[in-house]
C-alpha cells in the first residue's frame, strides 16, 4: 500500500501539472479537493483518466469520484480493491 501511495503521488503531480509540489508535500490523508491542493472539477476528470490509463480501472459515473478521490489513501484503497489482475 505504501509503495502504491508513493507512486500515486508522483503520478498525480505529473498528470495534474502541480508545479512546485513535491511528493513529500502531500500527505496520504489530507483532503485533495477544497483546501490543501485545491483541486477542481477538471482535475477530478483527469484523475479518472489517470485511473484508466495507469490502472485499467474505468469510472463510469463522475459523481462517484468525490468519494474515491477524497485522499491519496482512498484512491490507493480503491485501486487495490478494483485493479484487474
Amino acid at each position: 500500500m505504501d509503495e502504491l501511495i508513493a507512486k500515486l503521488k508522483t503520478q498525480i503531480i505529473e498528470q495534474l501539472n502541480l508545479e512546485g509540489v513535491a511528493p513529500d508535500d502531500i500527505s496520504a490523508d489530507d483532503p485533495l479537493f477544497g483546501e490543501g491542493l485545491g483541486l477542481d472539477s477538471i482535475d477530478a476528470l483527469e484523475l479518472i483518466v489517470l485511473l484508466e490509463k495507469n490502472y485499467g480501472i474505468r469510472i463510469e459515473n463522475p459523481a462517484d469520484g468525490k468519494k474515491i478521490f477524497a485522499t491519496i489513501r482512498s484512491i490507493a484503497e480503491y485501486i487495490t480493491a478494483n485493479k484487474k489482475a
Partner: protein
Amino acid sequence: MSRRVVITGLGVISAIGDNVRENFSSLKAKRTGIEHINILQTIHKGILPAGEVKHSDEELLQLAGVSENTGYTRLALLGMIAAREAFISSGAKKGERKRTGLVTATTVGGMGGTEKYYLDYIEPGKTGDFVKYINSYDCGDSAEKIADSLGIKDFITSINTACSSSANALMLGARLIKHGRLDRVVAGGVDALTKFTINGFNSLMILDKENCKPFDKNRTGLNLGEGAGYVVLESLEDAQKEGKTIYCELTGYANTCDAYHQTASSPEGAGAYLSMSKALVMSGLKVEDIDYINVHGTATQINDLSEGNAMTKLFGGNVPKFSSTKAYTGHTLGASGGIEAVFSALSIQNNIIFPNLNFKEKMDEFNLVPVTELEENVRVRNVLSNSFGFGGNNSSLIFSAL
C-alpha cells in the same frame, strides 16, 4: 438616433430538417433528430446519440450547389446552405447596391477535414486529394466560402466564443446596422460534428447516453448536434421602404462574463442573470413582457441548475413559459445561437411555443416546469433566447414582434 434592427430572412439546416420549413414541421410534430450516429466515423457510434444532419458530405455538396470540390468541408457546406436560404428568403437581389456583411461563428472551423487527413498531412512527401483541405482548417476559411457563395464583399468576420458564438454574431450584426456601418448583415453560425468534439465532451463526462432531458431532475448530460442557423438583419426603415417580410425585431441583447470557471457556470448563475437582465434593460421591456424563453438548456447538471437559478432570480415567482429545443437538434455548439434565433423568430411569426422534449420530473432546486406540449395560437410578442458558452461567455438576445 440609432436605427432599429429587424430580421428579414431566415435559414437553417439541422438534425430536424434541411431548411426552415422542414425544421418548423419537425418542431411542431415533436420529431427529434437525435439518434445513433450514422455518418461520422467514430468509436462512439452506437453508444452516444447525436443530432447529425441527415446527409453525407457528398449530398451536402449537391445541396450547396458546389460542382467541384476544391476543399469544402462539411462545416463550410452546412454554413453555405443555411446562409443562402436566409439570404434568398430576405429578397436579396443580384447587383443590389447595399453594403452587406457576413458575421459568422464557429467553434470547430475546418477540424472535420483536418482530423480526417491529419496523418496524411504530416507524412512527408505524401500527396493526394486530401491536400485541398489544408487551407480549410481555420474558421476564416468557412467564412470566406460562405461570403463568396453569396457575393458578400463589404465586411466578413468570424467569431469564436464557444457556445455563445452565433448569438454574439447577431449582436455584432445588429450593432453594425444600428451605427450605419452596413445596410444588411447575414449573421449566425455553423458547427459540424467531429471526433474532436465528441471525444472532448466525453472526457468531461457531460454527454448523455440516451436522449437528453433538459431541466429534468434526472438529466445526465447533453447530446451533441451539428448544423447552421443564419438570419438576415436590416434596418426597420429599409425593410419597410422595400416592403420586405419582417419576422421580428432584435430589440435587446447583452453579453457578460460569469467569471467563475473555464467551463462550468456558477451555481447561482451570476453571468446568466446579468446577460438576461441587461438585454431586458436594453429592450425597454419589463419582465412580465417576456412571453417565452428559449433557454440554453443543454441538460447538463450544471447548466440547467445555473440557468434555472438565474431565471428564478430575474423573474421571481413568474418565470415565463420556457423550453429548450436542444432535445430536438442536440447542442450545436457554435451554431446554437443562430439556430435558436431562427426558432425564436418562428415562434413570434406563428404565435407558437415549442415543447421541451423528454421532460418528466422537475428539478428539486426550484419550481420550474418547461412547456411540454406544443402550444399554438398563443400570443408570443417577446422571446428571450439564451446562449451560454465555455469561458463564462453568456449571451442573451430578445426578439420582439413589430
